[in-house]
């Protein structure tokens, strides 16, 4: 099924782009007239997905992150965050709450837990050495 509206942005995996990604998605989603809570849930989930890329995807290098937002019938919003980085060897393990390959004194390991909780569906596809694609879906209930 083709989306009613869609946008794609590509940016470098610099942490300063985490706020940019949140703002861009919020601007797109505003056309759906979401509630304050829905908007903040979406922004938080996007922040987590993009942060996973900036922290993990390209160790010691800067690579590209591709973010797509798509609106379908019945207010279905699909957000995809993809990279061509190192990939995740064990996706199930990575998605366990509190699991992190980052510095444990700094990273809480809750990124996927937030995405799972704040969005209605979460799908993660990854191939070590090739990259990772995170797809999140949320059904916006209009006010």
């Amino acid at each position, binding site marked *: 099924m083709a989306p009613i509206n869609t946008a794609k942005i590509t940016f470098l995996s610099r*942490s*300063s782009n*985490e*706020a940019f990604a*949140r703002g861009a998605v919020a601007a797109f989603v505003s056309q759906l007239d979401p509630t304050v*809570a829905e908007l*903040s*849930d979406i*922004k*938080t989930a996007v*922040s*987590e997905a993009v*942060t996973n890329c*900036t*922290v993990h995807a390209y160790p010691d290098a800067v690579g590209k992150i591709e973010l797509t937002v798509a609106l379908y019938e019945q207010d279905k919003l699909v957000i995809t965050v993809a990279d061509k980085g190192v990939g995740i060897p064990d996706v199930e393990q990575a998605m366990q*709450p509190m699991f992190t390959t980052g510095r444990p*004194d*700094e*990273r*809480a390991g*809750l*990124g996927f*837990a*937030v995405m799972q*909780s*704040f969005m209605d569906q979460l799908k993660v596809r990854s191939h070590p050495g090739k990259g990772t694609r995170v797809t999140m879906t949320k059904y916006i209930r209009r006010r």
Partner: protein
Amino acid sequence: MAATTTFYGAGGVLTAALGGEIDHHTAACLRTQIDEEIARRMPQTLILDFSGVGFMDSSGIGLILSRCKRMQAIGGQLRVRGTSPQIDRVLALAGIQVEKQEENNYGSH
């Protein structure tokens, strides 16, 4: 959007009034500023005031938990207050519940 912190203290209580958005990018700087102030003042209580924080993701949880460990290491305690509903949602995922009172306590997880 950068995150800011303003410190004020009285009688062994150090308050860090945070502002802006707390994410992975802004947390690093906040971490350093807070740790430097803790080392300088050695407070008994550190209060993280989120009243001026418009957004926080799970990077903020890492910030809170590691500041809590740092305070415990010097025999002190951490308190959190002024959180918005969005921040409470994120904290709840880590099992942290902020009591909405005059003085909010950092709950256990």
